[in-house]
């Protein structure tokens, strides 16, 4: 069980990517995702790949962290690859084997889809590895603040998100503790069919629920005691402020998007 690691697995470093304003990175991620879906020519694949490689390098996060981020979706990528390779029909047959035939178009499609999926995951990993969850929610809050005007409770929503993120490691630690305690009392968590297993979870779920309510109550009380009353007029300890590098980054992001769109239309 992990400890001291919040969701997203922030990797502490001091690269230029780490120091960028989270709002820039959020926009960058959105633009990048759009680009991944816009790319069609080999040129655009090349450009996006180059961008990923450069960003990974300047993030100064060890490569194995990116590889690790791909692990949970590895199965999906393989599945996409297989489905595409077998179920895309085309003109040029590469292999024919009984009723199964693999077309050149299928191979290309499979490669394209897998690459897209991999880039999607890598780009999100780039954000979460270089930005703390708190910074991400801060960035969201500030970027979405205009929505307050039309009465969308942005502050409350991001506060809830911050709290939820904060509680994930705590609850996972708590689960670990309760699980160990019940195993010590001979609880059997591994064997049996689904129904039996679900029943065996009761000794863990009940204490977990009880402690979550207790924690939530404690937190509400603590926030009340410090006069928390929502977002109205609340100042920040760490105010997000744009620097010169953020402006440059915005320009580069927009230039990249423009480049990809141009490639799509003229190449």
């Amino acid at each position, binding site marked *: 069980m992990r*400890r001291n690691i919040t969701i997203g697995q922030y990797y502490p470093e001091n690269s230029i990517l780490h120091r960028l304003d989270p709002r820039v990175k959020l926009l960058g991620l959105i633009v990048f995702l759009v680009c991944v879906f816009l790319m069609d020519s080999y040129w655009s694949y090349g450009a996006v790949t180059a961008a990923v490689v450069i960003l990974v390098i300047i993030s100064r996060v060890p490569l194995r962290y990116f590889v690790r981020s791909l692990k949970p979706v590895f199965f999906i990528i393989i599945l996409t690859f297989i489905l595409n390779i077998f179920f895309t029909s085309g003109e040029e047959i590469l292999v024919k084997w009984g009723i199964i035939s693999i077309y050149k178009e299928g191979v290309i499609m499979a490669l394209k889809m897998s690459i897209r999926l991999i880039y999607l995951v890598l780009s999100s990993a780039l954000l979460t590895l270089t930005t703390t969850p708190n910074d991400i929610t801060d960035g969201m809050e500030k970027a979405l603040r205009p929505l307050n005007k039309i009465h969308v409770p942005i502050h409350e929503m991001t506060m809830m998100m911050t709290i939820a993120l904060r509680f994930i490691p705590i609850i996972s630690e708590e689960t670990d503790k309760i699980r*160990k305690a019940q195993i010590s009392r001979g609880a*059997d968590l591994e064997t049996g069919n689904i129904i039996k297993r679900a029943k065996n979870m009761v000794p863990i779920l009940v204490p977990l629920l009880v402690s979550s309510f207790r924690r939530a109550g404690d937190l509400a009380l603590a926030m009340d005691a410090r006069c928390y009353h929502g977002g109205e007029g609340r100042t920040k300890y760490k105010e997000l402020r744009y620097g010169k590098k953020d402006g440059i980054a915005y320009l580069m992001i927009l230039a990249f998007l423009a480049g990809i769109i141009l490639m799509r239309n003229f190449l």
Partner: protein
Amino acid sequence: MGLEFRNVNHTYNPGTTVERHALKDISFTLEDGEYLGLIGHTGSGKSTLIQHMNGLLKADSGDILYDGQSIYDKSYSMNQHHFKVGMVFQYPEHQLFETTVLKDVCFGPGNMGLSEDEAVSRAKEALKLVELPEIYWDKSPFILSGGQKRRAAIAGVIAMDPKILIMDEPAAGLDPEGRDSILESISMIRKERGITVVLVSHNMDDVAKYATRVLVLNKGSIYMDGTPKEVFSRTKELYDVGLSAPGITVITERLKSLGIGEEDCMISMDDAADMIAKSLRKG
């Protein structure tokens, strides 16, 4: 025979930025019938060590032997080991889940495969040992007071009749009376059943009072190992690793430096009182 640690190492999150070598080459033998006080600064590895004792954590290297057999042997039943080595975690009351106290205490014995009657009789016996009044046995554990919950949870482990009882700060967060009476109950259970007890505590007075042997951990290594007298007489070294000696030891040392009494390190209130009385009579 007891429980023997041989060069046990444990590292949390190996290969990540939060890697932590929490146990370093731990070797010692917990003898049958001992009352071991385990002390050490926060983060020194006490909780990690005791979780190795009942097999919740597995050593990265090294071996642990129970009565001469490695608990990591394929033929060794880890499930049975959990029953032989009972573990009371910090804030054990957070594990209560059943609808009544009695049912909750029956959970462990039930898992051992005992008949229901047998489990209930063991549970009742355990509840008596921890002195939880009978009127609460059929109540929901969630309506009990903090101290009563703690007793119910400890009873849940004692009901499994473990050969070794490990407790991680069983008295944390209790009032002085509550802590004394819980520790007294445990001491009594040890005498009655002849079991081995491991007590993790930050309270030096409690350790001095009950333990027959004290193990000091520092940054994952064994720093001292001896009788309470031996360990607590090395006050200076204890201070070096962020610990202290029992209050009474500190007082008698101070008296000694003023020329009152000449006996060695004092760890019990009665001995100290005798010493002071003696020197008063003399002077």
